[in-house]
């Protein structure tokens, strides 16, 4: 069993993960195609040309004082946008969620044990963080995860829209980290915990594209791709 879950099953999980992401990407691109708009009745009015002198634009003198004023304005604008963002409204939640999502990637990718396995399998590996550090980061990750669980259980707004599916998704996300932490410290039956850890990791990879965990990919699509279409892009996508 161990040979299967640590061998072919890993590649099956990765194949499902990447194929699923590719499928969902195509689905997103198909669904966000611009619909044909009906032509409005009547001809559009021709724009009248403005008469008169062209406004003379004053050249801005880039003195040191102007540079400081510009930098000051930029700082104020950035501060204002930060204040009105989620980070400003929900400081604790935003802090925990940023930390949680960074660690969700950093810990497994730069973990020494994973990179040793990767080197054995492919002959190449990524740089690894010290084991003591990844152990501490896993603990921080678990703290963040339990913060989300308590929030889901005890904040009435979150509880009102939570169901068994949300708790299952939480478990699927946390289980690889929890079992990994337990296996590193050799708590309980090491062999059993290690097997559960491997299966939990593979399960997580398989379900990511097909569940709400797919926001791993779609967060960037929703937030940036559609927005880009209305700024730098050709405005061909509608959501």
């Amino acid at each position, binding site marked *: 069993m161990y040979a299967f879950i640590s061998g072919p099953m890993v590649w099956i999980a990765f194949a499902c993960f990447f194929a699923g992401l590719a499928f969902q990407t195509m689905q997103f691109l198909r669904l966000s195609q611009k619909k044909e708009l009906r032509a409005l009745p009547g001809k559009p009015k021709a724009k009248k040309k403005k008469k008169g002198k062209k406004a003379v634009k004053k050249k801005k003198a880039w003195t040191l004082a102007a540079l400081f004023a510009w930098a000051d304005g930029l700082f104020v604008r950035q501060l204002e946008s930060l204040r009105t963002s989620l980070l400003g409204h929900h400081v604790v939640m935003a802090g925990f969620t940023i930390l949680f999502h960074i660690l969700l990637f950093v810990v497994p990718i730069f973990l020494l044990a994973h990179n040793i396995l990767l080197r054995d399998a492919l002959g190449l590996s990524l740089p690894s963080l010290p084991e003591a550090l990844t152990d501490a980061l896993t603990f921080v990750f678990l703290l963040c995860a339990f913060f989300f669980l308590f929030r889901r259980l005890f904040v009435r*707004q979150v509880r009102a829209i939570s169901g068994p599916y949300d708790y299952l998704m939480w478990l699927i996300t946390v289980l690889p980290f929890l079992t990994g932490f337990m296996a590193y410290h050799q708590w309980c039956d090491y062999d059993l915990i290690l097997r559960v850890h491997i299966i939990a990791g593979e399960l997580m990879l398989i379900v990511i594209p097909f569940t709400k965990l797919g926001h791993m990919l779609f967060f960037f699509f929703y937030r940036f791709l559609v927005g880009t279409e209305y700024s730098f892009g050709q405005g061909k996508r509608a959501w």
Partner: protein
Amino acid sequence: MTSQAQPAVRSDEIKRLLDRKKDKMKFQLSHCMRCTLCAESCFLFKAHDKDPQYMPSYKVIHSLGKLYRRRGKVDRAFLESIKKIVWKNCVLCRRCYCPVGIDIPGMIAFARSICRSQGVHPDFEGDAQQSWL
């Protein structure tokens, strides 16, 4: 109010409407993280002492979400309960903010059109007289 018997709900008609936008709506419903970060962007939520039923995500999950889960097989009482959510609890001001970018007003509007197809909508004599606040 008249005591005329209401016509039966046409489930096949609801199913047909649901299927028309099934891909897009289910795609968006499945990507709602239930994070409740959209709540603060709704002025009705704030005006009602942060009552969860005014959260944009709650309104979508308990209207369109339930319609898809039941595959359109609903009765009139169910549609009446949705009516309150999609008309009285939401004014479609389009100010709700979803961190994942889900088009919440678009989904509420779609739920409204499904209710309207079965003759379930606010009437000017009764519902429209009530205040939103």
